[in-house]
């Protein structure tokens, strides 16, 4: 193929195997690096690293590993802030950079959790895109040595009324439901938010959490000269080959990718078997290192495991079991076929590994060895097609300090305050507003979605939807542990707040997740995130991103909880218009005795309803401003992290000594919505009297932070009040739980029956989606 001229490119350049030998002899062979998303200087750097042009397979590998998704090239410089600001703690057994962060919670138990986006696939094929999103995050958790114990899902869709939302939402929900339910992982919470900014770009962020004995912690190091590289799980097919199809198409310009599905189809049944077989192998101490195959498939797993150990690796690619015989080397390397793991096994244990795999009916194949060459060498049809330093793929990708620019309309937006919008002025209008908001898509009951999720499989779910946080008992019959300890998890995010001010918005997301965990009585101990933004090449987006990271890192430092890891999703935009910046934050909490967890919802007649925290006239960015006026402007509510900590301290203590029978945090929709949800939970009403000085509108709809609604059983009011004073948490008795009220009665203002509330809140989603 020497002396190629233009005409040759119309034929498949790679019909003849592009080996390392061929590459050395044909330095001038034109290569489609630009079509693969590599810049001129990046391509030059690859040639520099290799001392020759890359082979087709190498080019495919570099283009994937140096993509934004794998290399974090735009975000890396900013994400450093997390490590820099993270509070010091002995609890972190694995942190940023691992498949998922691992937090020790007792002498012998640890928890790992992570959130990941699957936004773009879920837009193209909602069901499979969302399903494989769940599958992917679960494998990250599994790779740490943990048994995955639950999932959660944070979702953003376009306008609820838009026809495309009727395509995307049911598909996404059925995909999450199908994969998670079939895998046997309870779904214990999440979010659903509608906003036109997500119309062409919905967000599907999936979280998984796992539990492991500290001694079972795994790593991804391909260490130990002569150790065997084993591929476990599904056969490899042409799934998700995406951009790499450029290499296979007849002409590089021809975008015909019809036969190259970028859609991956998931098989949760195989994933379940993968989980059971990996856990059995861990317990028998059969693996030295392990890495899941996710984005970038074998390319990522091979290079990262070798690089992590500082070793070399030899792989015979012909041994990879294929679903289709006709695959080319670069396709096998790039395939994103689901339900696969890469194991590093010492030679004398290979037979045992194969036996465990056989027991569970999972395919396992030795495909290579760990070497001391420091090179990743891959053979295909007996010839070498890849020979490169693994670290150059995994760690030495480009890093950009992208230009950032504060948007020039900031002052204007800040001045356009929702506090000046027309407000309901009569009691009738207040009442109507409460009802309209309760039925608005963002605040309406989410049962139509959440009843498609199994929240109880595993038998350890102590709280889940519609409670503020998911709470799990760490079952001592399963993975060890000494008592009925529990963990709590919540995911939160508010794109409108972040749009108004990304620094504050990220902190508000953190504060909300922290508060949701705290109101159950758990102590927040760690956080993770998924940062969903527009294009990093847009300086305004880059500025938003940097601000959000800064805010989140600073917020975690103040709350004294570390960020254990996270995920960045860029390019969430339609044409030139980016989504609202949407940092999703997940907070993990622990509690000593899970039986003391605090649920939400009014239950016991006579309980005193108390509002914790201070209410200010903060309405900018609120659900009221958006749902009643279509308004987004002003400055979001003030962050009060010290207030959140004090609130958490009160809730923890009150839960321990059973001063509270129920609690619900205040967030979207303010006090009014918290009351609606608390009444609808068990259809038990309440009689409320606002303080004399209170502006009813502000008290009902403001979204001030560090607040919660709690129910205090009779006889505990005094002790509880003293506890609040001890921690400097403002507390205002508001009324009592009273089933004879028949709904919400705000004395001197209005009353709404439970039936009317239920009709408004519970009818919305079924009305929209069937």
């Amino acid at each position: 193929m020497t002396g190629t001229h233009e005409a040759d490119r119309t034929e498949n350049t790679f019909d003849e195997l592009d080996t390392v030998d061929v590459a050395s002899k044909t330095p001038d062979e034109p290569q489609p690096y630009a079509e693969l998303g590599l810049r001129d200087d990046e391509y030059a750097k690859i040639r520099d690293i290799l001392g020759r042009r890359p082979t087709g397979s190498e080019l495919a590998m570099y283009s994937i590993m140096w993509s934004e998704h794998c290399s974090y090239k735009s975000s890396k410089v900013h994400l450093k802030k997390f490590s820099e600001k993270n509070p010091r703690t002995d609890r972190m057994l694995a942190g940023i950079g691992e498949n998922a962060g691992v937090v020790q919670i007792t002498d012998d138990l640890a928890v790992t959790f992570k959130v990941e986006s699957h936004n773009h696939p879920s837009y193209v094929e909602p069901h499979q895109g969302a399903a494989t999103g769940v599958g992917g995050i679960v494998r990250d958790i599994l790779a740490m040595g943990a048994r995955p114990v639950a999932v959660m899902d944070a979702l953003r869709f376009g306008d609820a009324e838009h026809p495309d939302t009727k395509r995307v939402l049911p598909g996404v929900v059925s995909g999450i439901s199908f994969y998670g339910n079939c895998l046997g992982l309870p779904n214990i919470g999440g979010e659903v938010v509608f906003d036109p900014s997500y119309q062409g770009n919905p967000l599907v962020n999936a979280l998984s959490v796992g539990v492991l004995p500290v001694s079972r912690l795994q790593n991804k190091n391909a260490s130990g000269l002569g150790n065997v590289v084993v591929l476990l799980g599904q056969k490899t097919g042409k799934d998700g080959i995406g951009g790499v199809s450029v290499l296979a198409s007849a002409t590089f310009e021809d975008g015909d990718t019809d036969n190259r599905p970028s859609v991956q189809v998931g098989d949760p049944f195989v994933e379940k078997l993968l989980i059971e077989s990996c856990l059995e192998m861990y317990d028998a101490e059969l693996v030295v290192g392990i890495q899941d195959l996710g984005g970038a498939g074998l390319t990522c797993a091979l290079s990262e495991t070798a690089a992590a150990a500082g070793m070399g690796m030899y792989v015979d690619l012909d041994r990879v079991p294929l679903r289709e015989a006709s695959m080319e080397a670069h396709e096998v390397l790039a395939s994103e076929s689901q339900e696969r793991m890469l194991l590093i096994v010492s030679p004398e244990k290979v037979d045992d590994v194969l036996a465990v795999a056989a027991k569970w009916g999972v395919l396992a194949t030795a495909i290579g060895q760990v070497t001391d060459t420091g090179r990743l060498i891959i053979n295909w049809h007996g010839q070498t097609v890849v020979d490169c330093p693994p670290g150059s793929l995994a760690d030495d990708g480009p890093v950009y300090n992208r230009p950032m620019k504060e948007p020039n309309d900031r002052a204007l937006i800040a001045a356009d305050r929702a506090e000046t919008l027309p407000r309901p002025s009569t009691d009738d209008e207040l009442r109507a507003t409460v009802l309209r908001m309760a039925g608005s898509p963002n605040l309406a009951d989410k049962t139509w979605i959440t009843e498609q999720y199994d929240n109880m499989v595993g038998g350890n779910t102590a709280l889940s939807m519609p409670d503020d946080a998911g709470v799990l008992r760490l079952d001592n019959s399963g993975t060890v542990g000494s008592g009925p300890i529990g963990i709590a998890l919540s995911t939160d995010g508010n794109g409108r707040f972040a749009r108004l001010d990304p620094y504050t918005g990220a902190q508000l997301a953190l504060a909300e997740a922290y508060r949701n965990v705290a109101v159950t009585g758990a102590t927040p101990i760690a956080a993770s995130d998924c940062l969903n933004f527009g294009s990093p090449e847009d300086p305004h987006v880059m500025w938003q991103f940097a601000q959000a990271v800064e805010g989140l890192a600073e917020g975690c430092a103040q709350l004294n909880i570390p960020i254990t890891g996270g995920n960045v999703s860029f390019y969430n935009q339609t044409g030139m218009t980016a989504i609202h910046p949407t940092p999703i934050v997940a907070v993990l909490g622990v509690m000593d005795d899970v039986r003391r967890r605090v649920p939400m919802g009014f239950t016991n007649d006579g309980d005193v309803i108390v509002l914790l925290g201070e209410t200010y006239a903060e309405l900018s960015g609120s659900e009221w401003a958006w749902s009643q006026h279509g308004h987004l402007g002003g400055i979001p509510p003030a962050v009060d992290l010290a207030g959140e900590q004090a609130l958490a301290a009160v809730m923890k203590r009150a839960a321990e000594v059973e001063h509270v029978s129920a609690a619900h945090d205040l967030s979207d929709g303010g006090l009014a919505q918290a009351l609606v949800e608390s009444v609808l939970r068990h259809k038990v009403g309440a009689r409320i009297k606002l303080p004399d000085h209170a502006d009813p509108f502000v008290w009902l709809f403001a979204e001030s932070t560090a607040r919660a609604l709690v129910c205090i059983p009779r006889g505990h009011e005094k002790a509880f009040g003293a506890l609040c004073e001890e921690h400097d948490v403002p507390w205002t008795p508001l009324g009592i739980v009273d089933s004879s009220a028949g709904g919400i009665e705000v004395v001197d203002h209005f009353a709404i029956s439970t039936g009317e509330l239920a009709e408004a809140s519970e009818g919305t989603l079924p009305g929209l989606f069937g």
Partner: protein
Amino acid sequence: MARVLVDVMLKPEILDPQGEAVANALPRLGVNGITSVRIGKRIELEFEGEPDLDQARAVADALLANPVIETFTIHLEEVVAADTAEAAETGEENAA
């Protein structure tokens, strides 16, 4: 009377977990000669009057098959005395 049959199958390169599960179960039934099982949908559309193939194709394209992962085929079927025989009158392929 006539009706239109729409066969919807996953594209060949797409994983078919259903088919795989069945294929893996066959040896337990003592069946060893079957090398591959693919499972798709068979949809029977009955028309009020004359079947309208173009309309059927439009419905298949919009509603019955997911063009991202599936292809479909359309046939006209003459329903002969209580279903005892079946003949594909028209065969056409549509890769959506």
